[in-house]
């Protein structure tokens, strides 16, 4: 069977091979960057939110200079790989939720996403379905994610269409009184940072998966 590739995959291979031939980067550089990029997750952004919940001065820095604030959680936005491969460049902004305003992020043009601090987009974030419907029917789309908010809460969709990238800073949920930064970080999941979910005590981004033992295990 012939493996089919999309036009975009063919284009990516062509551009990459040309760039390697031209000496802009090597195949090894490309592999390293791919490995690096695929390992970034939402944890730095989750920690940023947790720190901001605990420290009003840090929260202020997140809201006024998110690029500087991201350094405190180990992300150098302007040189995120640390070995010379530039990021998407761009600017970073934090959208602060309040009890009466809830933010949710989309990019209707393509899939702009704050990758240096949040990792790669989930597949659904890139789909035309999410992109075209979130701007027009945000409450219905959020309901599909299991998030229904009362009419008193203003839903504010952020269409990330230029050179700013956004993360959402949700309201610290009740039931987390006295928690430390590590505990708070665990409940700020990727979807909370995009705005399609709210953090809840007990719902963490590092849930342990159950182990199912094989019925006919291989013997070594």
């Amino acid at each position, binding site marked *: 069977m012939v493996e089919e590739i999309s036009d975009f995959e063919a284009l990516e291979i062509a551009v990459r091979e040309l760039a390697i031939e031209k000496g802009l980067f090597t195949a090894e550089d490309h592999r390293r960057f791919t490995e690096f990029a695929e390992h970034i997750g939402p944890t730095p952004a989750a920690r940023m939110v947790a720190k901001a919940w605990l420290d009003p001065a840090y929260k202020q820095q997140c809201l006024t200079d998110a*690029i500087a604030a991201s350094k405190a959680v180990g992300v150098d936005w302007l040189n995120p790989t640390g070995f010379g491969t530039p990021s998407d460049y761009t600017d970073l902004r934090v959208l602060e939720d309040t009890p009466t305003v809830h933010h949710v992020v989309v990019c209707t043009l393509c899939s702009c996403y704050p990758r240096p601090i949040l990792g790669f987009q989930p597949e659904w974030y890139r789909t035309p379905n999410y992109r075209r419907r979130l701007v027009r029917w945000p409450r219905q789309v959020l309901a599909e994610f299991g998030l229904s908010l009362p009419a008193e809460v*203003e839903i504010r969709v952020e269409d990330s*269409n230029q050179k700013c990238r956004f993360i959402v800073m949700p309201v610290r949920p009740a039931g987390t009184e006295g928690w430390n930064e590590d505990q708070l970080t665990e409940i700020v999941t990727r979807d909370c940072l995009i705005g399609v979910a709210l953090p809840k005590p007990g719902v963490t981004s590092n849930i342990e998966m159950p182990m199912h033992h094989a019925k006919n295990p291989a013997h070594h």
Partner: protein
Amino acid sequence: MSQHDRTHHAKIATGKGDPQCFKGTAGGPPKFKVGDRVRIKDLPDIFYTRCQVYTRGAIGEVAVVTHESPAPEDEAWGHVDHSEWFYIIRFKQKDLWPEYPDNFANDTLQTEFSERWLEAV
């Protein structure tokens, strides 16, 4: 044969960021300030734009004055000599989608424009 420097963008943006590398290049202060009401113009565009059709003709309010940068409609063609101020504009959803439910009249949407797309109302 003319030589196009394909690392031009990396040279100006590495370590600074883009749009940050265009700071101070708009040739003056921003025309609008936070709170100003503006209408999105319905300008012609050829092949590339980031001004979404759903916003054209709508009236919103400046939420953030963000940065200076060449407009994407120019930058797409490699024209980076002229910068503009950029603004995040906040719209009432009702003003974008007439059929938006009345009981959620508080809902809003924000998105960003370069100055050429905005006119005062």
